[in-house]
């Protein structure tokens, strides 16, 4: 029992010797070590060799670093234009994108939309003319459907002058079939209808024509905008390239 106690104390003191050398033990621990050292020659010897070891390590001279470890030459200096570069790049990309969209729209209108509109123009114009006819002839009691039929018939009559004399009877026949208050259209009515017949190039602007016209009216402004965007793109692109070049130069 006593031996076991002494052994555990011996082991404990052996572990405390290192801190004892450094004066890092509590009063109680230091007292325990000192008491044990008076009784244990092995621990006294351990303490001595441990002290010599620590002294030897402490004698190691300070080694001069082989070089300087300063960092300024390794670091890319903080550039005040770092964020400016990001914004410039973004603005250049935006200008380029807008320019592309605008040019694509412009070219698309000129070479795709405008010719298509020109090709399609007569048909919608004719339809619009037939629809507009009742508006111009408000006094006419004939509904638009009837009007259309009349116009078609009238057109046929115009195209084929030979049966000109028959032009009136079908009109009369159709007029009679319709539930209008005046079953037989008067020659004045026919005469009123005739001026509203569609012409291949309408004098007034149709809806599609208006759109095209409006677009063409906008063309100078569009070109101005394109020019401004091109200028902005060139200036921004140049500034971006310059800043990038400065960044690269400052890096080396």
């Amino acid at each position, binding site marked *: 029992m006593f031996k076991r106690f002494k052994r555990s104390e011996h082991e404990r003191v052996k572990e405390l010797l290192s801190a004892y050398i450094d004066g890092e033990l509590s009063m109680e621990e230091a007292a325990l070590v000192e008491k044990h050292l008076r009784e244990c020659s092995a621990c006294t010897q351990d303490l001595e060799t441990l002290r*010599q070891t620590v002294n030897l390590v402490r004698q190691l001279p300070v080694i*001069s670093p*082989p070089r300087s*470890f300063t960092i300024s030459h390794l670091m890319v200096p903080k550039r005040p234009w770092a964020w400016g570069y990001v914004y410039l790049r973004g603005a250049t990309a935006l200008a380029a994108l807008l320019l592309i969209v605008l040019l694509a729209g412009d070219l698309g209108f000129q070479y795709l939309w405008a010719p298509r509109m020109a090709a399609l123009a007569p048909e919608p114009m004719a339809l619009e003319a037939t629809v507009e006819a009742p508006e111009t002839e408000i006094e006419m009691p004939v509904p638009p459907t009837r009007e259309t039929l009349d116009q078609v018939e009238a057109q046929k009559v115009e195209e084929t002058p030979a049966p000109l004399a028959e032009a009136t009877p079908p009109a009369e026949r159709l007029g009679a079939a319709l539930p209008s208050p005046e079953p037989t259209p008067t020659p004045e009515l026919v005469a009123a209808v005739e001026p509203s017949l569609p012409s291949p190039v309408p004098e007034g602007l149709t809806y599609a024509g208006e759109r095209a016209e409006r677009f063409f009216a906008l063309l100078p402004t569009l070109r101005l905008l394109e020019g401004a965007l091109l200028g902005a793109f060139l200036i921004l692109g140049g500034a971006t390239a310059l800043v990038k070049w400065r960044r690269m130069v400052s890096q080396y």
Partner: protein
Amino acid sequence: MKRTEEATLIAAARQGDTQAFDQLVRLYQSAIYNAAYRILGDEDAASDATQDAFLSAYRAIGKFRGGSFKGWLFRIVTNTCYDQLRRKKRQPTTSLEAVYLDSTPPWAENEEPEEYALRQELGRIIQQGLTTLPSEQRIALVLSDIQGLSYQEIAEVMGTSLGTVKSRLSRGRASLRDYLLAQGELLPPRYRLKVEGHA
């Protein structure tokens, strides 16, 4: 350097002033390099670890919350050394003997050639002894006996308790002592450990 001067330099370095940080580097590079050298046992590896540690310190200086700046640097360099030791363990390329034969530590100047040779031999053997220790014990021993840090400072640097520091240091010193005793005749006579009952 006064503490206020150090604080001024740290504040400037926080604002990105590399020149101010360089002054701090010049102040502590010797201590940091020596610690790295004793932990890693190789000049090139120590140089790399020291440079990495200072770069890391510069990048993380915003996280420095006051206290001992030197202690903070020691913490960074010991972590860097841990990483290097782990990598070295994974890829053992050079034998320990080759490392020590190749590396000639630059000793202090103004020293007699004979004294220089003896101390070089002592340093080589102690360094070999240090390398035999587990990395935690080695770091504790280097910080305590070479860098002169207190137990409390070592605990902060290593991020551990005082009790663990005591234990690591005790075991490390005992192992180094046993290693030096085992070297016996290899040590220069004046540096041999004197054991009672032996010459």
